């Protein structure tokens, strides 16, 4: 329908305001990270990459970055296949209460991060007692926790792909002589690719960014980047942090852009 011109203007203003609101703080940080001056003044007196050098020089950030990367990659590699299998099981089997299970998938949204983190920590403490083996402050423990983060995302995204999938293509393959495993490998899996790629991306991001679940589980010398940033914050606030933040934003945004070239994210997510 047609909108009169003043209303259209208002509409554009609303879009602009919403996006500005969402992006302003991030833009601010990126700007801060490349200017020399530590305290507030405008316009700032000169460009520099000093804060980036400074950030890399600080071991906790460099190590944190590598730990985060390692944990996120491992958690994605384990969580996405598990989640995909669960999604297939959920959507394909004729079990009752599918609707209830689908709603349960929203569960992780219902459990506050701090609560989940605390829960996991307590759980680990008890498990350590029974198993007589360290879990907190180990890489295995951290990865296991992050797998929990990645599964709901994967199940949800792959389930959505499965629901949109034309099952007659699978029947056609069977009709042409393909056995069930061949049908899965040659037809089902390729058709699910967008959902799985998106699931991997978001799993990685969720894990890489996570603070709440991680906070209690990291050990000395095995800190993730978000935890390292939080620790640094308690100590001081300067553009070094802005530099680290900028690197992190660019990394994740870059990943999303690359993925978006292959899979239209706004359609899948």
């Amino acid at each position: 329908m047609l909108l009169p011109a003043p209303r259209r203007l208002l509409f554009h203003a609303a879009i602009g305001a919403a996006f500005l609101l969402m992006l302003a703080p991030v833009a601010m940080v990126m700007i801060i990270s490349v200017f020399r001056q530590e305290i507030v003044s405008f316009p700032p007196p000169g460009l520099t990459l000093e804060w980036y050098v400074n950030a890399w020089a600080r071991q906790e950030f460099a190590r944190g970055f590598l730990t985060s990367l390692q944990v996120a990659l491992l958690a994605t590699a384990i969580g996405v296949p598990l989640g995909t299998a669960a999604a297939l099981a959920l959507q394909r089997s004729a079990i009752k209460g599918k609707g209830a299970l689908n709603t349960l998938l929203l569960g992780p949204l219902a459990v506050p991060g701090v609560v989940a983190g605390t829960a996991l920590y307590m759980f680990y403490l008890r498990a350590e007692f029974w198993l007589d083996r360290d879990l907190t402050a180990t890489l295995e423990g951290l990865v296991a926790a992050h797998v929990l983060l990645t599964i709901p995302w994967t199940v949800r995204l792959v389930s959505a792909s499965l629901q949109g999938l034309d099952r007659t293509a699978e029947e056609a393959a069977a009709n042409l002589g393909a056995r069930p495993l061949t049908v899965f490998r040659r037809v089902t899996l390729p058709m699910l690719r967008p959902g799985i790629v998106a699931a991997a991306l978001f799993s990685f991001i969720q894990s890489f960014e996570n603070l709440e679940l991680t906070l209690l589980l990291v050990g000395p010398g095995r800190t993730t980047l978000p935890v390292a940033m939080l620790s640094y914050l308690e100590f001081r606030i300067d553009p070094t942090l802005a530099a680290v933040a900028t690197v992190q934003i660019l990394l994740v945004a870059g990943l999303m852009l690359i993925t978006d070239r292959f899979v239209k994210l706004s359609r899948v997510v």
Partner: protein
Amino acid sequence: MGSLVLEALSKRYGSSTAVERVDLEVAQGEMVALLGPSGCGKTTTLRMVAGFIPPSGGRVLIGGQDVTRAPPYARDTGMVFQSYALFPHMSVAQNVAFGLEMRKVGRAERDERVMEALRLVRLDHLADRLPRQLSGGQQQRVALARALVVNPAVFLLDEPLSNLDAKLRGEVRMEIRALQQRLGLTTLIVTHDQEEALTMADRLVVMERGRVRQVGTAEELYEHPADPFVAGFVGRCNLVSGRLEGGGFRAESGALLRCDSTGAPADAALLALRPERIRLDPDPAGEARITAVTYLGAQTEYHVEQRGTTLLVTRPTPPLGDPMRRLAVGDAVVLSWDAAAVRLLPAA
């Protein structure tokens, strides 16, 4: 013995019956249509033949072999789906090659047979396209080629034309029929469109609520419908309730209608009369009155009321000068028909 045989094939879901003891033989090279309204069980029957739905009872034999319990991939059928069901991530050639790959046909022979199949449907120039880059009619032809390239023992078509527009439908219909006859394919086609079934199939199976109502050629079904459902579903038909009385048929409304009662069933309760078999003549003294005239180009439809019974009459539209051309609502006419044109049927 037919190339495809169904013996008392049934499918029940809990207490409801989708298909009830269907018996059918399709001879080598014959094309049989399963025809019926939606929900009549025709698609369920086809899917039991393909192996996608396990029957609750009965048997399916392909080329004399019992395949009732065989999985879909072990049955030698080639199916064309209503939605085409092409593999979206494979090119046209890859789609067509899939069945050959599954049969472990060598690369050289595979390529050759794929191109041959694509030439058959005149799509060899689009072999490298993806399905989504093709029009609906082209996708349909890829689906045909994909099913045909493996030389299936039985060719299955599930409403193959329902996603095409009217013009294309006529073309593809002729194309499929020509291919089927040229290759001598044993074919089972499912459709809800009687014109499609009449034009394409050697024999038709009319189904309703899971049961077979009648099996026969187009002419057998149209000229000798076994029951009111078939009479009304294949072609249009006037159905008048009443009973035999003397040499005629007494309609419930009281009118006595001319008919030939020799060989009529004892419980005859319906008179079936095709609208094109009724002659209509203007006659100021006639006791029948026209209640509606609909000009349809090649033909004109008249609703005519005679002593409380309304009959539909279709006549070829008369040339412009003809006095028939001036017939209008309210005009008096006389209806007549050959006694032999009437069929007497048991109640529905």
